[in-house]
């Protein structure tokens, strides 16, 4: 699968699940796995870090 932003190849681990974040190694954009069915993966833009994020 390629990065929706810059078209670089994305390495999505076989055990990755819905909700996980995938970072593009080239452009650094973050994507969230929206759906995963076997090798079919649907990505969406990940939320950017919010001011209230943390522990």
């Amino acid at each position: 699968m390629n990065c929706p932003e810059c078209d670089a190849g994305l390495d999505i681990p076989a055990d990755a699940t819905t909700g996980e974040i995938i970072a593009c190694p080239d452009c650094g954009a973050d994507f969230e796995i929206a759906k995963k069915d076997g090798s079919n993966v649907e990505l969406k833009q990940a939320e950017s870090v919010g001011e209230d994020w943390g522990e």
Partner: protein
Amino acid sequence: MSRVCIVFDRLRTEEKMLQKEAAGLGYECIMCDAKTAQIDTEKKAGDDFGDVALERCVSYFRGLHFTMCLEFLDVPVINEFAVASVCGDKMFMTARLKKSGIPTPKTYFTFSGQAAAENAKKVGYPLVIKPVIGSWGRGVMPIRDDDAMDGILEIRGVTDGPHDRIYYLQEMIKRPPRDIRVITVGDQPVAAMYRKSAGFKTNLALDGQPELCKITGEMGELAARASQAVGGGILGVDMMEDESRGLLVHEVNNTVEFKGIAKVAEQNIPKKMIEFAMNLARK
């Protein structure tokens, strides 16, 4: 069979560790993305949140409001809304720690830039300013003189966040280049680490280096007291080693991150958390 629900908004290593331990203990584990959940107040129903929920959202306000929804639906949740609301605001938390007799740094509250400037002159530098909401060391700044204070107040004066007129100033503690994070589960300390940094901030999110820390009697007792003071649950109690006063608790974290310490801890931290949660599951 009791079911545990892990509520998240960004699936991290910690949530996957909890899921794995729940499965290993034989419990059904529901993974709930808070961003997709829907709750209907009329039907008093929502998605399936199991018999007990661990609220693990990385967004504080999302997690806090989701916790309220779970309690509305009578789902036991860790941590409780009352705990999350106290721990999520540094002013609330510090006030609670002080009132409960927990040793904590001297802290000063003001509600305008002018009052904050006057307060800083009165108590003297160096000080640390912290946003009352926020984590990972974001916005925490040392203030060593009037010039630095003026600069920070100028920035605060032009921003317009809902908490920007609330000023939280704290004494700067003379300590070794590290602080201590103790993870508590049900008021029991289960693991601790030093967070080392040559710089001012020790947060692991800012490249502080973790190192296993042996829990001393004093440290364990203080962590337990701090946990009780904020209402208990699963917490991260942060301490500093003051040169003259010994251990001071400066923060209690509500959705504690533990992937680093879990690799070296003697106890299985996520397993402890699941066992604690299942004891609170509705029957």
